[in-house]
């Protein structure tokens, strides 16, 4: 079977571009045609930047002809619509920012531009990245390419669906409590949340500043390492950016796992977890054992069950502060039909924000308000310390931890939309990682009834190499990541 150009990996496309067997214009056209084919049923993109893409592709081809080529030169990407792109609408899938055109580029966008990447579009998401299904987009829900009646996960659901269908070769997403890894799991792509501080968030529209991190969604681990090589690194415009140099992440990719110690934290195999998911993860862990890793099956991180509550106090609290900036004065939607400043502000926020954003602003404002601050916000921050300590302790013994990415396969569109707590529970395996600030990757690890299952590998702070290496080794002996949805 011939591989369509839109289905290539970054490294395959790079080889073809370099050898002049394919041009960036051809590759970009293949993705734009794919967008034309599937967008009507998948709805992964808020904006298609076809003219810009072809212009960037022509420029890339000129450079390649002169022998000037980087690993991402000329290769199509979609960017989640919460990362600022100069002169191109950045909506956060919110009515509030429906017409917002940023005057500057996010650092990650600058870095992709310097690498001469080709941007084909901006990806749909849950409004302001608050959600786990992309149903909270103010514009339209994205559909899972493996089953259009199901969600692609969220909040980077558009990014994940675009990579799964070939609308782009790779994507950038952001992850506050699982927003890269959970949709990567649900769409059977590879998604990495780097260590907090590894990738600059300058120009990422802030949701929860102590948790947000940008990362790649790709077709395999090699691609993930290549994108991380480009976007990682210190940036003095993000004061949480850590001033350490990033290694070449492709150098660690070997298929030999001898000497690697893996722990399996039992608390992640939660009550209500689907049997097929559990089985697929156990089978996958045994594969890692076959590759030479030593596995301890009964590790305990006893505060894991408290992570959900701590997260859903901390994240909304930070969101309520971050989203205070949407007051209808400086940019964004503005309610005009009144002379009263306060009424204008309240109505701007009433009509500009969707239900989930309002719910989180309310929850966060409550947790921060006088009389409740100590019992909720401060308490959660202390529990956060306990969770971090448990990870530190585990990592004194293990190189990586392995868990499922989600407790179930993708759920039906509409299934959890009226029950916020059930929706929150779909992030139960991913959000402790943001609480601790450590890196984690989700890779395809099987299917149940034709629906994807993701495996999560968790690393030490700035230990991306160990999880990339393990994920790479796994992909050398499995082909889950090569399967494509029939759409």
């Amino acid at each position, binding site marked *: 079977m011939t591989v369509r150009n839109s289905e290539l990996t970054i490294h395959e496309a790079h080889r073809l571009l370099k050898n002049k067997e394919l041009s960036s214009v051809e590759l970009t056209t293949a993705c734009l045609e794919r967008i034309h084919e599937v967008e009507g049923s998948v709805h992964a993109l808020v904006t298609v930047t076809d003219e810009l893409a072809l212009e960037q592709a022509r420029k890339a081809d000129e450079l390649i002809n002169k022998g000037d080529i980087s690993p991402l030169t000329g290769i199509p990407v979609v960017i989640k619509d919460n990362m600022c792109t100069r002169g191109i609408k950045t909506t956060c899938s919110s009515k509030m920012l429906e017409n917002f055109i940023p*005057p500057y580029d996010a650092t990650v966008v600058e870095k992709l531009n310097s690498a001469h990447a080709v941007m084909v579009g901006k990806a749909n998401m849950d409004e302001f990245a608050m959600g786990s299904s992309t149903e909270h987009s103010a514009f339209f829900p994205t559909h899972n390419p493996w089953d259009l009646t199901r969600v692609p996960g969220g909040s980077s659901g558009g990014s994940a669906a675009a990579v799964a269908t070939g609308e782009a070769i790779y994507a950038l997403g952001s992850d506050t409590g699982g927003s890269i890894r959970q949709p990567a799991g649900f769409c059977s792509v590879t998604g990495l949340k780097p260590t907090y*501080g590894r990738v600059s968030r300058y120009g990422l529209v802030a949701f929860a500043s*102590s948790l947000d991190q940008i990362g790649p969604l790709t077709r395999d681990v090699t691609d993930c390492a290549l994108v991380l090589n480009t976007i990682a690194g210190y940036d003095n415009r993000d004061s949480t950016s850590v001033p350490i140099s990033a290694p070449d992440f492709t150098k660690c990719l070997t298929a030999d796992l001898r000497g690697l110690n893996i722990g399996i934290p039992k608390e992640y195999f939660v009550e209500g977890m689907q049997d097929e998911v559990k089985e697929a993860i156990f089978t996958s862990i045994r594969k890692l054992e076959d590759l030479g890793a030593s596995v301890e099956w009964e590790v305990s991180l006893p505060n894991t069950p408290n992570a959900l*509550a701590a997260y859903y106090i901390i994240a909304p609290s930070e969101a309520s502060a971050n989203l205070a900036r949407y007051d209808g*004065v400086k940019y964004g939607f503005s309610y005009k039909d009144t*002379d009263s400043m306060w009424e204008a502000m309240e109505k701007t*926020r*009433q009509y500009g924000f969707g239900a989930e954003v309002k719910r989180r602003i309310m929850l966060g404002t409550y947790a921060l308000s006088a009389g409740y601050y100590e019992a909720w916000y401060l308490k959660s921050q202390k529990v956060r310390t306990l969770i971090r300590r448990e990870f530190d302790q585990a990592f004194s013994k293990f190189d990586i931890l392995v868990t499922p990415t989600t407790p179930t396969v993708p759920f039906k569109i509409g299934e959890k939309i009226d029950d*916020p707590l059930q929706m929150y529970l779909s992030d139960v395996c991913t959000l402790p990682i943001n609480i601790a*600030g450590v890196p984690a990757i989700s890779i395809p690890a099987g299917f149940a009834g034709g629906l994807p299952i993701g495996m999560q590998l968790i690393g030490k702070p700035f230990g991306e190499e160990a999880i990339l290496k393990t994920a790479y080794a796994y992909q050398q002996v499995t082909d889950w990541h090569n399967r494509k949805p029939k759409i």
Partner: protein
Amino acid sequence: MKLSDEEVLRIARLARLGLTKADVELFGEQLSHILDNFQALQQVDTTDVPPTAQPNQLQNVLKPDEALPSLSPDAILANAPCREQGFFRIRAVLE
């Protein structure tokens, strides 16, 4: 524990968030349900445990105080819902 309508409205006012009557009822129920489910947090022993505000160890990140090129006023104001003579135009704050 169910949040009263007054409590919901108090929070909404702190957040400067306009709510309909239906919102007040819905959020009252949903927030109460969510907080009830989070009560287990209160049982966690956090004696002598310091809070974590963010997970990396950076503190007091400073930059030299020097003037650098910036965006033009026009670029900054391009998204303003209402502008006048190079300023954001707002409604009267003191009436």
